Every structure is written in C-alpha cells, then in structure tokens.
C-alpha cells in the first residue's frame, strides 16, 4: 500500500470524479469531494515525509515497467514540496466550497461541479508527479478542460463567465498545443519522452536548430499557461467571473503548477548548462517577470472589483516567481519555490474571504466593502493580513519570499533589478491601502446590504491566514525544503 502512494495521489481524486457525477444529492457529492481531497492531502504529506527520510527521489514504475519504456512517477524534493500545496489548498477550498457553491450554482449542477472539481485537482497532481513529458500534456489537458467547465459554471450568476471561459479555453489550448509541438520536436530528435532520459539524450543534439525551436515552443506554451506577462490576458476575466470557490482554487494552485512544470522542463530537461539558457532565456524570463510585476501591480491599483484586483496582483506575483527562475541560480529557484508555496497560501486566503463576501452580495467591489470592517471584522481582517503578506511585511510569509528573491538577485549583483523588484512589491501597499481605507476608514452607507459572517465562511480562509503567519515566523523548514527542491535542478547551498 505505502509504495503505491505516488499513483494513489492521482488515482484517488481521478476515480472520485465519475463517482461524484453519479451522486445526485448535492451534500453527498460535496462530502465525497471533501473526503477524497482530504485523503489526497494526507497522501501528499506522507509522501513529503517519505521523500525527506529517503533523501533521494522515489520512483514509482507504473505497471512495473521500468523507464524509459514505462511511465514513471517521480517524487523528488521538488514534487514533494508542490504536492502538499496543491492538495492542501484543494482540501481547504473544498471545505469552503459548500457554502459558496450553494449560493452561486444551480442545485442540479452540484454533482457535476464536484466531478469537474475533482478532475482538475487530479490533473494538477498528475502534472506534478509524472516523470513523462507526454503524460504532463495529458494531465495538463485533464486539469484545463475541467477548469474551463468550472469557470463557465459562473454563468448562472454572471453571464460574463461564458466569454471568459471561452477566452480561457482558446488561449489555454494554444498554450497546450505549443507545448506539445515542442515536445514532438524533442521526441523526433531523441526518440524518448521520459524526462530523465530526454535530458541525457539531448546532449547529443544540443546545438541543433530543432532543439532551440523545441525550447522556444515549450517555453512559450508554458508562459501562456502560467500567465506570464504579456501572455496573461485570459487570467483576469477567468478568475473574476468564475464561481468564487473556483477562483480560490485556481488562483492558489493552477498557475503554480505551470510554474513548476516550466522549472521541471527548463532545468530538468534542458538543464542550466544548455547553450544560451542561463543568459538569453534567463534574461528574457527576468525581463518579463519584472514587467509583469509592474503591470500587474499598477493594474491592481486601478481596479475596483476585488476579484479582478487580486487577479491582477496574481500577475505581479507570478512575475516574482519568474524573476526567481530568471535569476538562474539555486537561491533564485529556491525563492521561486518559496514564493510558489507562500503565494498559494496568501491568495487562497484572500479569494476565500472575498468569495464569502461575493456569495452574499453578488459581487465584491470597493463599494461593497465600504465600512465593512465593523460589520464583518473577522473576514476583513483575513483580507488585511493577506494583503500585508502580499506587500511582504515582516512576520508574514510574504516577507520570507521577498527576502530570498532579493537575495537571489543581489547574489548575481543585479542591484538595479533588486531595486525594481522591491519598488514593485512595495507598490502593493497602494491597493492594500485602498481596501483598508474602504473597509475601516469609511462609514457603511445607509442603503448598503447587511453583511454577515459565520465560522463556516471564515474558518477556511483563516486556516490559510494562520499558515501565512506561521510560515512567516517559523520559516526555516520551508526554506530548507525549497533549497532541497532547487537542488534537484541546480547545485548550491544557502
């Protein structure tokens, strides 16, 4: 049983999906989703522990076929770190989903909603664990197709969810296609799809034009999937018009998984020694990251709809992860992993809290939360702490992210870039301040609806808030795990 955990990690939610679709009672479907995501989270945690104790990659051969003939699932320090993020957020989001889904989605669709919900989670977990490049594409499509459906389910409340889902579908498919084209070129050159095997065989064909083309297609496809500036336009409407529970799940996990896949492909297959990777590709990713950080932050400052505001802020935060990757060093990758982890917590908390407001008031805008600081203090405080973490205030997880990101840049003597990164992250203060001002410094308008809060709504958000503060104070284990993850790809110590 224990040695089958790597595959159970994916199988459990995957097989749960058709089961959920068959369960007609909505509480049953939710209960099943809660149970299975809980089990998936448990498996992730155990896998993390197993990998840490083993100190090396755990390789699971599907059907007993060894690589490169069979498909393998690899639990190394990097995937072991990302799995609990995805499954943990999925579990907490499922707890919160019940109320949010009840409020926003037609009761007849609940079973289907949870089926798609479990599918997208299974797809994400699959992308993280698999050691096969084509398998990544399969899981990418599983998670994306179900995510398009989930976003479109927002249409019952907000018709704009339909064009948003359609845009997302078109661009998502373009991204996946680019990825698979690049992969095809690699397969043509090397005759293998196993990631480890690929990286070994690439050495023979390293400087051919076909390999560079493959790298360009794969990188571009993944930039699109991770919403790296300037390929981010699908993200804001998709997050803003999706059902609140979906916004929370996707904002916290979907793009992160693509970041992880990008790292795995660029460093795990092509490798830091690949000609032109460390300078040209690195510089490109750095530049796009910084540009994204500014564009996202400035757009967030101008935004009045809270879901869109934090979606724009996600563009900026993905920019920071890109900056970490672009630094092309162990510290840079560690910073990217740290921020991937921390940002999932912060954005999960923020979107769950905002979702609780949106589910009641129909939407969550600056106007909706005017004076709400006194009416729903617990929910608003969760938003406040999440906002402070986005700025990177010490004693929140965001500070640790910022610390290692700046360190990665300064280690390479990128003083200017470090300064720019810093300024853009401090600009986050402007949009967080707008929220503070609206919620606490303004009086609630007389005609505004009365907002209420109950533990069902704020406990899930607060679970993540507590984790944000916890990992901000006791950050040593996370930093250690992130360095271990980075060392899978690039050698180097703290």
């Amino acid at each position, binding site marked *: 049983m224990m040695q089958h955990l790597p595959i159970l990690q994916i199988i459990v939610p995957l097989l749960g999906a058709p089961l959920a679709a068959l369960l007609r009672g909505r509480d049953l479907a939710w209960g099943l989703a809660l149970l299975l995501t809980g089990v998936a989270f448990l498996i992730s945690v155990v896998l993390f522990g197993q990998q840490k104790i083993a100190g090396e990659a755990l390789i699971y051969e599907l059907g007993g076929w060894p690589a490169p003939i069979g498909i393998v699932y690899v639990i190394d320090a990097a995937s072991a770190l990302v799995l609990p993020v995805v499954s943990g957020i999925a579990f907490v989001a499922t707890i919160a989903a019940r109320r949010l889904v009840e409020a926003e989605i037609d009761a007849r669709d609940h079973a289907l909603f949870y089926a798609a919900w479990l599918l997208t989670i299974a797809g994400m977990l699959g992308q993280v664990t698999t050691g096969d490049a084509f398998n990544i594409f399969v899981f990418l499509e599983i998670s994306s197709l179900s995510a398009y459906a989930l976003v479109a389910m927002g249409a019952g409340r907000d018709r704009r969810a339909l064009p948003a889902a359609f845009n997302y579908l078109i661009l998502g498919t373009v991204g996946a296609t680019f990825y698979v084209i690049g992969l095809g070129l690699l397969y043509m050159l090397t005759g293998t799809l196993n990631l480890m095997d690929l990286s070994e065989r690439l050495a023979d064909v390293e400087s051919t034009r076909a390999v560079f083309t493959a790298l360009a297609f794969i990188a571009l496809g993944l930039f699109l999937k991770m919403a790296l500036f300037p390929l981010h336009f699908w993200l804001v409407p998709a997050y803003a018009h999706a059902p609140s529970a979906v916004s929370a799940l996707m904002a916290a996990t979907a793009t992160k998984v693509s970041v992880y896949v990008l790292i795995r492909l660029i460093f795990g297959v092509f490798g830091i020694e690949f000609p032109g990777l460390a300078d040209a590709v690195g510089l490109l990713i750095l530049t796009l990251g910084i540009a994204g950080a500014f564009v996202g932050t400035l757009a967030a400052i101008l935004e009045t709809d809270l879901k869109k505001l934090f979606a724009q802020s996600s563009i900026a935060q993905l920019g920071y992860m890109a900056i970490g990757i672009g630094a092309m060093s162990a510290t840079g990758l560690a910073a990217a992993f740290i921020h991937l982890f921390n940002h999932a917590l912060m954005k999960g908390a923020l979107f769950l809290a905002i979702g609780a407001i949106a589910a009641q008031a129909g939407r969550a805008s600056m106007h909706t939360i005017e004076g709400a600081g006194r009416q729903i203090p617990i929910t608003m405080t969760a938003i406040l702490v999440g906002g402070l973490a986005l700025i990177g205030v010490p004693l929140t997880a965001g500070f640790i992210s910022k610390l290692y990101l700046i*360190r990665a840049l300064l280690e390479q003597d990128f003083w200017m870039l470090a300064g720019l990164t810093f300024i853009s992250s401090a600009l986050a203060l402007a949009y967080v301040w707008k929220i503070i001002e609206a919620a606490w410094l303004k009086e609630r308008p007389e005609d505004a609806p009365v907002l209420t809060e109950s533990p069902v709504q704020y406990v899930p958000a607060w679970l993540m808030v507590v984790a944000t503060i916890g990992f901000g104070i006791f950050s*040593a284990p996370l*930093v250690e795990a992130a360095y271990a993850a980075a060392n899978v790809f690039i050698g180097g110590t703290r």
Partner: protein
Amino acid sequence: MAVDTLILALLGLPLLASALVLLLRDKPDLRDGQALLIGAITAACAVRLYASAETDTVHFISLAAGLDISFTPEPLGKLFALVAGVLWPVATLYTIGYMRGAGEANHTRFMFFYAIAIHAAMGIALSGNLLTLFVFYEILTFSTYPLVTHKGTPEAMRAGRIYLGILVASSVVLLLFGVIGVWVLTGTLEFKSGGILAGHIDPFYVPFLLALFAFGIGKAALMPLHRWLPAAMVAPTPVSALLHAVAVVKAGVFTVLKVAVYIFGIDFLRETASSDWLVYVASFSILAASVVAMTKTNLKARLAYSTISQLGYIVLGASLATSLAASGAALHIAAHAAGKITLFFCAGAIYVAHHLTDIKDMNGLGRVMPVTYTAFALGALSIIGVPPLAGAWSKIMLMGGALDNGHLLVLAALMISSLLNLVYLGEIVLRGFFAAPTHGLKSEAVQEAPMSMVLPLALTAAMSVALFFAVDYFILDFAKPAGG
C-alpha cells in the same frame, strides 16, 4: 532584578496598561490612574535598566538564518528607553489634564493607542537586531495613526493619510530594502559595536546603502521627507508631545544613530568617507527648517519645523562619523526630548486655558501664565543651546565633532542655526513677557491651565536644567567597545 526581567517588564508593562485601559473603559478615574501608576513603574524600570551594566540578550524566535526577534540592551538603546520610559508617565498626567480640559472625545481609544505606541518605542529601543527594530518601527507607525487622526475631521484624516503614506512608503520601499541588503551582504542583522558591514561590501556602494537608511527612516524627518510632521500637528497636543519628544521622531533619529554606530560602524563610515554627503543634507535640513519655522505664526507649526531642524542635528552627529559627534547626537536625543516636550506642553496649556494658537495673539500672555512661560523660556533656551541647560552640551559636542573631522562649513551652519533658533523661539518668550497685550483677556490676573498640565511642564523644564548638571551620566562613549 536581572536584565532580562527588566527588558520584559519594559516591553510588557505598556501592553498591560493598554489592556487595562480597555477593561476599565467605563471607570475613567481608575483607567487613567492605572495608566499613571504603570507609567511610573515603567519609568523606574527604565532607570534601573539604564543603571545596569549587564547586556544579556533575550531571544524570542528565529525566522531564518540570521533573522531573529531578540532584544539586547546596549547603552544607546538604554538611553532611548530611559527617555521614553521617564517621559511616558509625565505625558500621561498631562494627557489626562488636556483631554478633560479640552473636552476631547474617545478618551479610551486615545489612551489605548498611546500605551501601544510606548510599547513599540520600547521595542525599538531595546531591539537586538534590525529585523526586530523594523517590526516595532512599523507597529509604532500604525499605532500612532489613530492618534494623529483622533479628531476625525476631514483635515485630520488628510493629515493622517500624509502621515501614514510617507512613513509606511519610505520604510517599506527604502528601509526594508536596506535591511535585506545588509542581511544578504553579511548574513546577519545583529547590532554589534564597530558595525558589521566592514569587509562585506565594496566601499563604492556604502553611500547608497546609507541613503536607503537615511531616507528610509522617514521618522527622522530628514528633508525632503519631513512633510508628515507638520501635517500631524492637527492632532491633540499630547499626541504632538508623543510625536516630537517621547517616541516617534526620537525613534527615527535613534534608528539612524543606531544603524550608523552598530551596523555601519563609525570608523568604517569615516574611513570610507561614505557619510560626507549626509553631512551636507543634514546641514541643509537644519537651516532650511529653521528658516521655514520663522515664517510660521501658528505656534505648533513653528515648533514642528523647529523639531525638523533639531532632528537634523542628530542625523548630522551620526554622519560626522566621529565618536564625539555620535555621543553628542545621543545626548541631543535626551536634551531635545526634555526641551521640546516642555514647549509642546506649554502650547497645549495655552490652548486649553485660553484657546489661542497663533503667536501674534499671545502678546503679554506671559504675565497671565507665568509658570507656563517660565517653563517655555527654559525649554527654548535649552533648544537654542544656552548654558546651564541641557542643549548646550550636545551642541558643543557636535561642534567639536565637526572640528575633529574638518567640516568648518558645518560649524558655521550650527552657529547660524542657533541664531535662527534664538530669533524664532525668543520671539515667543519676548512677546509673552514684554509686549503690549493682544490676547484679548479682560484681566491681567494669573490664569494658568489645570494643575495636571502645569505640573508636568514644570517637571520637564526642571529636567532640562538637571540634565545640564548631570550630563556625565548621559555621555555615551562610542570610542571604546560597548554592548554585546
């Protein structure tokens, strides 16, 4: 008592006071009485800590390698803790008188945040490293915001926005960047005598790093980041006392000095000549603020610009990079605190007793409020730097430091500034005692503010005198290794 107990007491007592303020919100006398009592105990602890020679470190938590929340009492920090600790109960007594005399609302909220601000000031004073200092620095900013906007008028809210905007933005953009930069370069943030940067950084970059701190510490109100201080004068006078004397600006210049001494190291700054540019910026700030002060006729506005000028002295002392100048700057923290709190107490007393805010309306008022005006005269003379008042010593030491380092222009700036101080502070005293009355009061009979306001201002005026004679206890020697 052991040193670690004293540290915990200094950090914990203000928190206790704030909790009790909330609990006793329905019993105003009890609420104010306990704040006074706890303030007195805090003052005693601060004195006791200042007298102690031990330097134990109290560790709380460790975030990552080289990132701790810890507290270490070193001489400079103990001096600031002493200033904040001793002035707190005095200011509390004054606050009680002012809030009741001027009929301000929301007394409980006010007392609560006042105590939190003192807690933050203690955290800054005793912090063992830059991270701890930064955290408490931000707590101080946020806890004083409700005090600045206390009146809730549109004007107060606007002032609050400038206050929070400048202080938070400068600290989050510049100061935090500097802190992280130091951590990346050295792997630690601990305050060590002699500094930690020497050998870890290319001297070319030192002036830039110093600039991150000099301008990032917005609370030091170095021009052009001074706007928040005059804006904040819309707050009730006890807040002005807190901002100008007890905690806020003092925390700012204290941080500048502490960073110069324990992070950069005085010798390192002198050898690399990295702080020369700051000498001129600080001198400019001193003179320009004095000139602006002369144009203001609102008493509190004039005092606010006077503070900006005086803070320049302390930044100057840090940037001159000699141990004499640094000691002078440290002494000036205490001397200016005693002097300026007296001046603000007097301004508040004048407002509560006669509702006057403009200097032109105060002619002849000295004969009506003799105690207040005598105290004002003493505070003013101390700030001008006339013996036998505390300000004289610190100015002499700063001048000596400037001479040591060959900055003759700075010497000239200091002298011109003293002259300007004499003009704009002397004017108030002279109008009060000798000019024909314009205050519009019917009689010339003595009409002072309530006793709970007059007593504190007399006390702080007396401190200015006492500090001159007891100056030996307050001269810190940065030349020999001190602290841990």
